[in-house]
């Protein structure tokens, strides 16, 4: 369970995120939907306690991320915008490295690793060095690495960006399984079909501000639109002619 209360962040004179609040409850997939440059990545970075908000706070399972970032991070599994695998290590070594940093015992890492290999379908490449991996293989390894400690809260920044249909479906299926297990999943995206396909709750961000939130149905009713894309366009102030 993640609750974000009025966080803001500016870089120099540019306000990247302005007074953003949202709730991501357990057992649901919550989306942070926004165009490129809307402030999604900066918001996510503050939520997973990589950078500090200037105002407001983030509470993860009752822990204030600003006061105790180390404990808060142990409750989260994060797939950041930057996947960054170590290409001189094998996929398994990448995953084990993070397991150890999570403080897990080696035997537990091994079991959990096997489970993730199964669920994400990584059997054919798990013991290969990650240099030259396809985009889909890389994202799977990055997800496995982020979730090695089986965290209650799963945060993903544009998880299916640049993936083919098969990989996208594999990841969607995996997220739905995690939801069924009662996990809290927060995921940022700019792809409408993606959000439409998996998310229960949607928060729309534009220009660093939250402009609407609710289920897809609620958002469509509110704007009288037939699909999420139209609802999104009307909520962020219509199509700007350029």
């Amino acid at each position, binding site marked *: 369970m993640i609750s974000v209360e009025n966080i803001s962040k500016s870089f120099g004179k540019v306000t990247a995120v302005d007074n953003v609040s949202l709730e991501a409850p357990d057992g649901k997939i919550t989306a942070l939907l926004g165009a490129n440059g809307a402030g999604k990545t900066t918001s996510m970075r503050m939520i997973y306690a990589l*950078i500090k908000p200037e105002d407001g706070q983030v509470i993860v399972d009752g822990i204030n991320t600003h006061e105790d970032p180390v404990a808060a*991070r142990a409750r989260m599994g994060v797939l950041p915008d*930057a996947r*960054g695998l170590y290409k*001189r290590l094998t996929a398994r070594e990448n995953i084990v*490295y993070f397991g150890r*940093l999570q403080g897990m015992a080696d035997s537990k890492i091994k079991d959990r690793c096997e489970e993730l290999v199964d669920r994400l379908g990584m059997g054919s490449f798990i013991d290969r060095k990650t240099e030259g991996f396809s985009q889909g293989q890389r994202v799977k390894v990055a997800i496995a690495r982020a979730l090695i400690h089986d965290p209650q809260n799963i945060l993903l920044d544009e998880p299916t960006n640049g993936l083919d249909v098969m990989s996208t479906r594999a990841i969607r299926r995996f997220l739905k399984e995690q939801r069924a297990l009662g996990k809290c999943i927060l995921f940022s995206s700019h792809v409408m079909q993606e959000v439409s396909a998996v998310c229960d709750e949607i928060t729309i961000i534009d220009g660093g501000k939250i402009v609407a939130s609710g289920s897809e149905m609620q958002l469509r009713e509110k704007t009288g639109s037939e699909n999420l894309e139209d609802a999104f366009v009307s909520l962020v102030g219509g199509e700007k002619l350029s």
Partner: protein
Amino acid sequence: MNFRAFKTVFFKEVLENARDKRTVMSSIVMGALFGPILLVIIINTTINMQQDKAEQALEVPVINQTGANHLMQFLTAQDVDIVDFEGSPEEAIKNKEHDVVLAISDNFSQRFNQGQPAKVKLYHDASAKGTAKVSVNRLRSLLNAYERSIGTQRLQLRGISPNLINVIMIEEHDQATKESRGSMLLAALPYFLIMGLFMGSMYLAIDTTAGEKERKSLEPLFLNPVKRDTILAGKLAATVAFGLLTLVLTIVAFKLTLPWYPFEKLGMRFNMDLQVILIMFLVLAPLALLAGAIQTIIAAFAQSYREAQTYVGFVLIVPMIPSMLLMFMPIKESLWMMAVPVLGQNLVVNELMRGEMVAWDAIAMAVGGTLIVGLALAWIAVKLYNREKMLFAD
């Protein structure tokens, strides 16, 4: 500090970089072997050239030979190969056609016969490198010998004791020991030892910081429930370990190449026994911490691997400064100098090479001084990553 996380980061960096052939090649081969081998080649070549020159018959181009027949006979008797020279002596020296040219003045025999100082001109280049000096010195001492013998004869002819003009008798006592003569040639050794160590840690310092930032793996790494200080400490430890490994290999390489140094030809001795090796390592080891920390700090400010390489490359100049100073300036050693990083190491290694017993307080100062500065820099390097700006390449 979370020791398990520290160990995990340390071993991951060591493993990952050991798999990178480029790092291994540059740190081990370049850092450890380049210095000792280059030094063997340079010393052998210089010494052989000097010896050849000293043993060869001296060839002297002379202008106006006929003006001083008696001198020419004397020089020929002394095994000098006299050749006739025409043209500009200035040009010949400038173009390095000859090391030295002797010009006999037109009124030489006239003044000689009158018992007046007769003039000869010696053309040479005092700033010339290598063996040219040997030729000039040989000719000059032959001319001095001729002058003395004629002068003595003239005085004797007039019934005066030649001893009257020998006012002072100089007896030279050269206090250079065999080892100290050897250390002049080996003055570059401390520099190569220190440089090897800097080169050994350079790639890890860049790869674990700027490299990781460029590959965008720093962000996921910092999302683990481990303090950034601990992660950076593990990275720095791996960097320092590669520096130390290169240091050990450089010392071993020197020990193994020692038989190829022409010590006997020059009547020198350089004793590199186990005690010398251990003191060398003890004194130089803290420098690995300092090198790794400085390089990590600099690499932290770079946005890309290449940028970091440029900046960190400049740091290789730092160990050159004290070595250069000591090569050209005779500095009187005092205890406080030992505490200055790099300078202290240079002084101790120089003393070891001269075969002197290095005092324990000097060793303690060199180790302690460098360790304090190194720890301070390591602390800065580790804390630097608490700044948000350091995390992203974009």
